[in-house]
């Protein structure tokens, strides 16, 4: 019977969801710190170092500051949509974490607790669905501010996200051709058996990574926030924690897209070169270790995101569109056809 759930199942899922959301916030908080520290390091500065040891409390201070800032809602703005915008951005950023397998299942006798909120048949497509809805957070916020700069930035951001979803999806199809399933858990177990997808899909990964940068509005594709053209971008009129929500949602998106890339191409929670299931670890240790391995991969990707931001200058808008439509889409189509042909040939 559908939805005849028992109480333990609900408790288990609620605990998991709370942990993942808390973790997302924590990682997003400290990614802002890492961003400033890495930027300082690359530019031969010191970075934030006043609040706490090594400036470690800096994100807390920033968050507190945002909470206590005066909240300004422009008179000519559309009040309801103005508040809905950042809320949608945050909700969609947090929802994507629901289908990612965060570690190996905790199996102890008859108890089997998967470290994944929902292992549904659609798996990765759900991430795409939520990401495609995430455009509305930017568009609604930009439009309801009733400011030309915000509107232009919102339209830039939305068209960029819609354009880069296509090559991203095509790169994904090549992965799905190899695994034969959309389930995230199957994608990971396929990689544990047959080796990581990055070995078979290097081109696909590069396309996916470039698209992920564009989807997260990160440099070199951060045109919605190009301050020399559009002042402050789509969140120009926002202040206080509503601005904080937009900025935070961006970092959570970075975190989740790092997790998705690690899961799709870098074996998820798999430890490379060894077969950890033969080590005879206790189930709890085993789950925690696999989770730690995934986190290490995610942190590496986050570092690459930051590294790129402080290395590469911004694209021009026509260059961005040309790259998306005239280079990445044909490339990903070729990649898809090659993968399909090879899969067919090898399976015969």
């Amino acid at each position, binding site marked *: *019977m*559908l*939805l*005849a759930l028992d109480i333990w199942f609900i408790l288990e899922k609620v605990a998991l969801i709370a942990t993942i959301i808390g973790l997302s916030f924590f990682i997003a908080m400290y990614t802002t710190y890492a961003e400033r520290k890495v930027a300082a390091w690359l530019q031969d500065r010191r970075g934030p170092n006043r609040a706490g040891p090594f400036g470690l409390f800096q994100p807390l201070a920033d968050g507190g500051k945002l909470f206590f800032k005066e909240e300004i809602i422009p008179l000519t703005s559309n009040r309801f*949509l103005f508040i809905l915008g950042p809320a949608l951005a945050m909700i969609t950023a947090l929802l994507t974490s629901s289908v990612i397998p965060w570690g190996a299942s905790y199996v102890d006798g008859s108890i089997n607790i998967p470290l994944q909120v929902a292992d*549904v*048949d*659609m798996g990765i*497509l*759900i991430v*795409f*669905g939520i*990401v*495609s*809805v995430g*455009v*509305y957070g930017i*568009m*609604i916020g930009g*439009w309801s501010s009733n400011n030309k700069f915000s*509107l232009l930035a*919102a*339209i830039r951001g*939305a*068209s960029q996200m*819609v354009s880069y*979803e296509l090559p991203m999806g095509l790169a994904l199809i090549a992965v799905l051709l190899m695994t034969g399933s*959309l389930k995230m858990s199957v994608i990971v177990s396929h990689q544990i058996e047959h080796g990581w997808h990055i070995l078979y899909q290097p081109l696909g990964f590069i396309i996916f990574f470039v698209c992920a940068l564009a989807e997260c509005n990160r440099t070199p594709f951060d045109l919605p926030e190009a301050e020399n053209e559009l002042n402050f971008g789509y969140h120009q009129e926002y202040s206080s924690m509503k601005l904080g929500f937009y900025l935070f949602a961006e970092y959570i998106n970075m975190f989740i897209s790092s997790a998705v890339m690690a899961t799709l191409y870098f074996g998820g929670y798999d430890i490379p070169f060894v077969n950890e299931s033969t080590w005879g670890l206790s189930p709890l240790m085993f789950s925690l270790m696999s989770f730690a391995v995934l986190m290490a991969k995610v942190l590496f990707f986050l570092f690459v995101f930051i590294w790129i931001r402080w290395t590469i200058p911004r694209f021009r808008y026509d260059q961005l569109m040309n790259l998306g439509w005239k280079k990445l889409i044909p490339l990903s189509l070729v990649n898809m056809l090659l993968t399909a042909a090879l899969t067919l040939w090898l399976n015969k």
Partner: protein
Amino acid sequence: MNVTPYIFWFLSVLALFSALMMVTSRNPVYSVLWLIGTFFAISGHYILLNAQFLAVVNIIVYAGAIMVLFLFVIMLMNLNRETEPQKNRWLKFIGALAGGCLLLVLVAALKDAELKSQQAMVGGGSIGLIKVLGKELFTRYVVPFEISSLLFLSAMIGAAVIGKKENSQTLNS
């Protein structure tokens, strides 16, 4: 306790209410947002029928792509209550008449439909899962599938051609 009927009624009310609000909203941006709400409610119905693929694709294609384009156009034209053109009263009357005729046809078509033997399976069935759906599409329904993909291709080429033509004209003039 089975919550499926409650979810069904909730989603149905949500879908109908959003659709009504979409039609009656004065502000076109609100209309688009209510229509997105309707799509989400319909996707919920698909999930109740275990048609997961259809549900997700409905959101990706309709809510995530097509409605974004709608919103683009409406936001750029900056339509709002003050600038809304007043429609002819006769036009409204004829529109209502045409809509009523469509309703009549739908009701007449559904009146004789065999509802008892055609009841949908709720929560079960694997026809909506991607493996089964793909197999059906590429074996039994492969010809209609390919024809519809050709239609899409021609529509895309047509859009590109129209877009190019206008561009060269503005450059010449």
